């Protein structure tokens, strides 16, 4: 019973935190865009516009809900639901911190540690494509359909390279559990040092998976009006936009846990703090890393133009995948060498 209660609380906290971070990512995006473009950004709602996400959310709720007559009503509603659901499901396996020891019991700050955690993330993210595809198809609009086709082909192509980058990572770590991968990176033994190429491939693919610039073709406003969500209004549009920000948050969390040590930080043993203190500090540092990557996502978005469809496919299939294969081979040689099975 107690176990369920704790898990329930944890689920609620993780869900609310991802919603909160996603909401404030929209604010951060606008403020960072303003900073990069010499503007002020939103500053009307509350001090420094801090209440802007609430105002936006309220606006989304109050808007008239329009379902086009030619749209398939059921699928039209299903699209954003799938998108939102898959976005909030991925947070489950992320270890937010080492864990707290209270009265002799150890409570890990993670909803569940599945031993195939990474595969779970991939599975759930792949379902996310259906949200876009169904939404774009059900809208019965050519622009939506084109956006949906772009989104699905892009996400499927980049998932391959992403998976291959992960294979190389698993070869060095020997586990699929995200918690174990993070634990192995104790101190400064981060995976970025053993997988430099893998990090680059993984981050680029994460950009493509999140549909962020330079891979924001599915919704590029100058070509496809609004892309797959052209016909959406009110909170269903809000769900699509919101899911994108949750995805960005989760991607940042996964990048930092897989390659940048998660809640580990240098000189963790030399500080001489109690394990609980270290754990809490680790969580803070983990969030710091996540926010850095969210900032990175935004920084890139407001700096460079986007690719064309064929260039995107070219990059995915003819650059990223061969690079990922080379990375796997290189990692194989490295692992053999490390285990002493390879002699020069």
């Amino acid at each position, binding site marked *: 019973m107690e176990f369920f209660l704790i898990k329930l609380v944890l689920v609620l906290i993780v869900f609310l935190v991802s919603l909160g971070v996603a909401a404030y990512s929209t604010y951060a995006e606008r403020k960072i*865009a303003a900073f*990069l*473009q*010499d*503007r002020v950004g939103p500053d009307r709602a509350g001090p420094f516009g801090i209440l802007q996400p609430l105002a936006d959310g309220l606006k989304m709720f109050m808007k008239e809900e329009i379902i086009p007559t030619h749209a398939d009503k059921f699928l039209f509603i299903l699209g954003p639901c799938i998108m939102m659901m898959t976005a909030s499901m991925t947070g489950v396996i992320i270890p937010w911190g080492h864990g707290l020891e209270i009265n002799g019991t150890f409570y890990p700050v993670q909803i569940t540690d599945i031993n195939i955690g990474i595969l779970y993330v991939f599975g759930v993210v792949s379902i996310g494509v259906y949200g876009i595809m169904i939404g774009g198809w059900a809208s019965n609009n*050519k622009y939506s359909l*084109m956006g949906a*086709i772009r989104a699905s082909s892009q996400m499927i192509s980049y998932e391959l390279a992403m998976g291959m980058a992960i294979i190389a990572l698993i070869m060095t770590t020997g586990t699929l559990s995200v918690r174990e991968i993070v634990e192995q990176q104790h101190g400064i033994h981060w995976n970025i040092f053993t997988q430099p190429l893998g990090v680059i491939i993984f981050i680029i693919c994460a950009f493509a998976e999140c549909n962020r*610039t*330079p891979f*924001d073709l599915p919704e*590029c*406003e*100058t*070509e496809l*009006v609004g892309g797959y969500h052209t016909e959406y209004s009110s909170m269903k549009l809000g769900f699509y936009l919101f899911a994108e920000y949750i995805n960005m948050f989760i991607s940042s969390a996964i990048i930092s846990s897989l390659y940048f040590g998660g809640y580990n930080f240098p000189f963790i043993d030399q500080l001489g703090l109690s394990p609980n203190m270290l754990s809490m500090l680790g969580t803070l540092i983990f969030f710091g890393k996540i926010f850095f990557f969210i900032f990175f996502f935004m920084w890139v978005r*407001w*700096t*460079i*133009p*986007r*690719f*064309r*469809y*064929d*260039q995107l496919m070219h990059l995915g299939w003819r650059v990223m995948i061969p690079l990922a294969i080379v990375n796997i081979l290189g990692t194989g040689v490295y692992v053999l060498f490390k285990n002493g099975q390879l002699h020069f």
Partner: protein
Amino acid sequence: MNSTTNEIIKEKEYTTLNLGPTHPATHGIFQNVMKMDGELIVEAEPTIGYIHRAFEKLAERRPFSQITPITDRMNYCSSPINNMGWHMTAEKLAGIEIPKRVQYLRVIIMELSRIADHIICNSVIGVDSGAMTGFLYVFQWREDIYEIFEELCGARLTTNIGRIGGLERDFSQKAWLKIERLLKDLPGGLKEFENLLVRNRIFMDRTIKCGPISADRALAYGFTGPNLRAAGVDYDVRVMNPYSSYQDFDFIVPIGTNGDTYDRFMVRENEMWQSMSIIKQAMEKLDRLDDKTSFHAEVPEYFLPEKDEVYNTMEGLIWHFKIIMGETQMPKGEVYHSVEGGNGELGFYLVSDGGRTPYRLHFRRPCFIYYQAYPEMVKGAFLSDAILTMSSMNVIAGELDA
């Protein structure tokens, strides 16, 4: 193919995509009906006339001085050039000699508006390729240029600047200060914008070989201006047929080689630097002129007298009345005058039968000509290319439809 197989020949089906009339990328109201094979364009069919306002017919009913506001609304990104072009046409018909100082002042105004026009076009190429930031960087300088226009004539976008016979007033001290400040600040801002895009790998991949047109085809269509120069033909009205004393200035006519979007972008980018140098030269020349005050030719029949004269002299009152009521007669004749507009050769073909209004006035609008080549330029290209081609040709709906 084995002839015994029983095959069903099915004709390939294409999607028809309506790009416009209200699409975020068309920057104005015009429609393209595109036959699409997935992302590829098989055929494009442009439709025009969504904001046709019958300017040429309107001009037949208006006195000469009242045609200036019409020209504002053609290429509204660089309306001062349109205004000046029209004034020069009317002056050519009436045989008015314009003082050197006024000609140089006009050159300054025209080059400022050329910079404003190119700023819009180039930054919008950035926006359409997904780089929003550069757009906001350079729009600040466009704002500064509009502030100068505001100082010169009171208006910003549809300027209605100048009059037949000169300018309505001299440059104020504040205007000179603003121009000097712009010349000081703009190079830095433009450099920043160029750093963002010119050697950006993604931007180059997107724009090089995107919507190209050969010099032959461009000439056959009647291209002029930056779009023709990007294709490699060094035709510039300012050099070929100088007006308003452009022959006194020393500047380079930048040309491209492939006539693609990148070349058009770079030609415009370089023209902005040349325009800055022309403005500097004009300011130096003005300093060396003995004439420090004239801002119009002495033509009382066309140029509105000062208010003081109107109230205190009979001739002033008569001229004022005649000009305001549009009762001044223009000489009989037929003239063609063209200026290098922001977009290309902006021509005015004017036939006058000696009455108070033109008998016929035709505007040679470069956008109208560019848009005819559009289907050929985007055939077989991607949808994204089509958008970039359109924005790099700088097709302005107001000028297209007139």
